[in-house]
């Protein structure tokens, strides 16, 4: 399946921004099951310097740029073409139970490569009640993949999608007690659950194909960025889970970047001088263009 992704992020500032440094995580990430055909990045106003493509610590593409002339708005637009292939997913019966998986994680190269995703990060730190919440899914030597599916299913069932309940600053503890939030919260919640159990879990940001209600036209710009999580299962590698939609990502999830939590992969991060109040508009189109 080939997708065309159009992502426009626009900031408006109530007062002029005199100087801004930005760092963008907006390009799809090349993966065995995701071929990036083309990505265009357009920034308005034109950056005055410091423009550079790079790769961050986690292997994601980053784009740095500086705006040193006063401006009252910023628009960053990406247009990408991505081909998705099916990704392998193991049979539940082939995956080890949690206790065996935890032992395997202590050994050799795996231990070094996964360690950073096993412990608290600023936005996804485990806490006792959360670990207790996650525990029942992994009882009785159940294969870990079955446990992970169960946990994802429970988060989906127990938590309500509510775009107004949280902000970026809402602590995970509150998301947990109030049982509401958005995809980002559910991803962080799942990650913290798994880290509490000792499993390596990471945050994945990207896009999701949304389907219009039956009989309606697709609306332009109605899609959005999306976030889910990925777990390391010894013997099988990283497996993605989307607790917001209770599904294992396959042909409809496009990956841009991953890290320990949102903070590592924020789509557009900036530090600016001036600017006053800011307003944000985002429009995303994920359009399947051929099979």
């Amino acid at each position, binding site marked *: 399946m080939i997708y065309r992704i159009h992502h426009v992020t626009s900031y408006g500032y109530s007062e002029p921004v005199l100087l801004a440094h930005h760092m963008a995580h907006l390009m799809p990430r090349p993966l065995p099951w995701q071929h990036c055909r083309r990505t265009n990045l357009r920034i308005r106003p034109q950056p005055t*310097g410091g423009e550079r493509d790079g790769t961050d610590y*986690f292997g994601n593409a980053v784009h740095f740029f500086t705006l040193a002339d006063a401006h009252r708005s910023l628009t960053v637009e990406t247009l990408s073409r991505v081909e998705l292939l099916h990704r392998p997913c193991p049979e539940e019966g082939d995956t080890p139970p949690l206790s065996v998986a935890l032992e395997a994680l202590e050994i050799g190269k795996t231990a070094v490569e996964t360690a*950073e995703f096993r*412990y608290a990060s600023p936005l996804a730190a485990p806490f006792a009640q959360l670990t207790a919440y996650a525990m029942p899914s992994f009882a009785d030597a159940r294969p870990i993949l079955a446990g992970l599916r169960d946990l994802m299913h429970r988060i989906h069932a127990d938590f309500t999608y509510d775009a107004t309940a949280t902000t970026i600053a809402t602590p995970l503890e509150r998301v947990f007690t109030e049982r509401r939030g958005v995809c980002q919260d559910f991803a962080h919640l799942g990650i913290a659950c798994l880290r509490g159990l000792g499993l390596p879990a990471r945050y994945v940001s990207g896009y999701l194909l949304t389907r219009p209600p039956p009989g309606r036209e697709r609306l332009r710009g109605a899609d*959005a960025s999306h976030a889910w999580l990925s777990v390391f299962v010894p013997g099988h590698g990283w497996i993605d889970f989307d607790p917001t939609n209770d599904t294992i990502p396959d042909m409809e999830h496009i990956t841009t970047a991953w890290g320990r939590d949102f*903070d590592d992969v*924020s789509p557009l991060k*900036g*530090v600016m001088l001036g600017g006053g109040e800011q307003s*944000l508009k985002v429009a995303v189109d994920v359009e399947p263009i051929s099979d």
Partner: protein
Amino acid sequence: MDRHQGPADPAAGPVAGQGTLPGTGGFGYPVDRDHWDEMVAPDGVLRPHWEAFMSGLTALPAEDMAARWERAQRLILENGVTYNVYSDPRGLDRPWPLDPVPLILSDGEWDDLEQGLVQRATLLDLILADLYGSRTLLAEGLLPPSLILSHPGFLRPLSGIVPAGGIHLHFYAAALARSPDGGWRVVSDRGEAPSGAGYALENRTIIARTLPEMLRHRPVEPLTPFFQKMRETLQGLSPRNRDIPRIVLLSPGPYNESFFEHAYLARFLGYTLVEAEDLTVRDERVFLKTLEGLQPVDVILRRTDGPFCDPLELLGESTLGVAGLVQAVRRGTVAVANNLGSGLLESGVMAPFLPALCRRLLDQDLKLPSVPTSWCGDPGERERLRDDLDDLVIKRAHPGRSGADPLFGDMLSAARRDALMAAIGRAPHAFLAQQRLRLSTAPVWTSGRLDPRVLMLRAFVTAHGHGYVAMPGGLTRIAADRDGKIVSMQAGGGSKDTWVLAGDPGRKASARRTVQPPAKLVRGAHDLPSRVADNLFWFGRYVERTEETARLLRSVMSRVGDAAGFGASSELPAALALMGHIHRVPPNAPPEAAAMMIARKSFDASQALGLKANAERVHRMAAMARDRLSLDTWRAVNRLHDELAHVTLDDEPAAEDLVSLLNGVVLACEALNGLAMENMTRGLAWRFVDIGRRLERGLHAIDILANVLPSVGHAGSPALDVLLEVSDSSMTYRSRYLSSPQFAPVLDLLLADESNPRSLAFQNAALGQHMDQVALARRTAFLGPDQRLTVWLTGAVRTADIDILGRADDDGGRRNLATFLEVLRSKLWELSETLTREYFTHAVSRRPGGGTAREPMP
């Protein structure tokens, strides 16, 4: 060697107050045999390397010592040696506690210690290079990945960057303690931005002035060569401009606990002291914002913790960082010392693994061991933890988060023990268990007697040439009282100078002398950051405002009650009216009650326009521009602050007392102005202080003239006398006119006379000159908006017809003059705002963006 002596017999128990020990004079120094004592051996005999000092101290009469020590205390206060204690309601600037008796180390012992310190720094640098590079130490299992990769000091964006010169750790400090067996152990490693070397130097300076003959008796290793080496190292780091690199000292600002040291070191090393907002990154290069524009920075001596240094790639919420700094480091356009990411060494995470790492990386045994420390992430260690908790100190492996203070096992209640064990059970990788060490003791001087205190020694190491060198000495810190077991400045402990006795003079003198290249002749100081210019401008304004307010208040109080001379009390209403722009008086209040009300407000720190609040501002502005002010200026600032800080008005303050207090305040302000006039070089720093002063004085002249308007008729009026008095112009008037004051001549003298240093015209002329000079740096052909304003102001006053302006309208009012003054006032304010816009534009606040607003997400 001292350390080869056997351990003291622990069964002997403490022997308090043994009386006079051989060689300790009459100081009655008790020896506690559970601890190693630095001065007295277990057999009660003075250690040989203390003999010279003790005989010197014994020879010094007690009163003499007391007098000298009092002088030293005053020196500390006046030099403004301070330490900020976060929990202290007094907040900033607690005086630095120093004890006159140094810690003395023999040269033989120091040689061993130095080798150990140098080896340790070398090792830690190699560890950093590995962890930010190939990470073989993790793969080989020599360091647990979970400990390192979960550490908040591990800065991922720095991974894979090779720093300038290949060095990660340029400066290192070790907190050392001597165990009862006489051996030194490292309690903690400081690799982020080690502080304390400046305090050590200041301690030496004060002790050298207090006990000069002691340092002459037997030579002590000097400290300054160490700083010279630091300087050479920093200079060598510069990616370009090897000859005269621009090096800045980056400080988190005056609220940091050791800000004094930042300013002190910047001045001592000759670097520009900057805060994050003084720096900016353009095109992957770091620049300093100065009045002359952006100037490239080559080397940053960093005192801000790594994670806070770049809000773009590191901690986003940090206001102490420079956006884009990591990218500049990545491109190699700037060198940062210590390199970003070196904070990984803090809090002793490496300690349990160092012996093995030392053999692996250096093929040597570790010479200077740590206090035995184990990592709770090791399952075997956790078992032992509970049983041994009484003898352990539990530390967080991850510094900087809440509850990070070390916990002493034996001080915990049962409930807290259980809570701690549960916390360790949940995240064992985040805890370290360190053996409790019985610290050694050394004598402190307490009113004529010597008394033992436990101590720790902070030793300093700098990269130099292809290796490291240690400072021969260090910062010794002592517990607050005799029973104290914990050594902490934050908890009220004290400090000592540290002497390393120079060995064979022939051997060392030649090896340690450093050749200082001849200085190039330059005029004008190093760059003036715009922020500092802003602070200096307001410093000048607040000093002037304090003086004017004090003069006005003095003129009021000297007309109250017993303070009033013959006939003076009749002038009280006029004096009160002159203060109208500062404190309004209720129209029907009896004058004496109104005067007292104003006095109370002036000494109430919560009144924004009061004297006390102004003096606070003077102090704050001076603190923020501290490295630009001379020591004498500092002393004068502190004196002004002290004059006012301790004043509290009781119910019935006597007017005479207030008058004499206000005399002191006026004198202190005059002293500050005098210092600025006589002692500051006529560079930009001086100019901005004076611009602030002139502007404020000009505004003041307008204000008091406007205040006096409603109450003067044609001829003599008490208001004019008071007006001349507060303007310090009575003498001039009398010598000119030989009569009681009349309005037009007074107006001329205070408004238009360019030869009177209190007149508005004088301020206008001075401001005009300043603006022309400052503008030279901008190299433009046209007058700037600030220059145009001063030209206008000067012209307006010069062309004003004072006779006409001074004439009363039919109803006795002077509307023309009132309007004229109003216009002049608004132009002066416009000048102040223009200055801010033209020269201090950094004042725009910075904020994180992007990350704060969340885009809609499913």
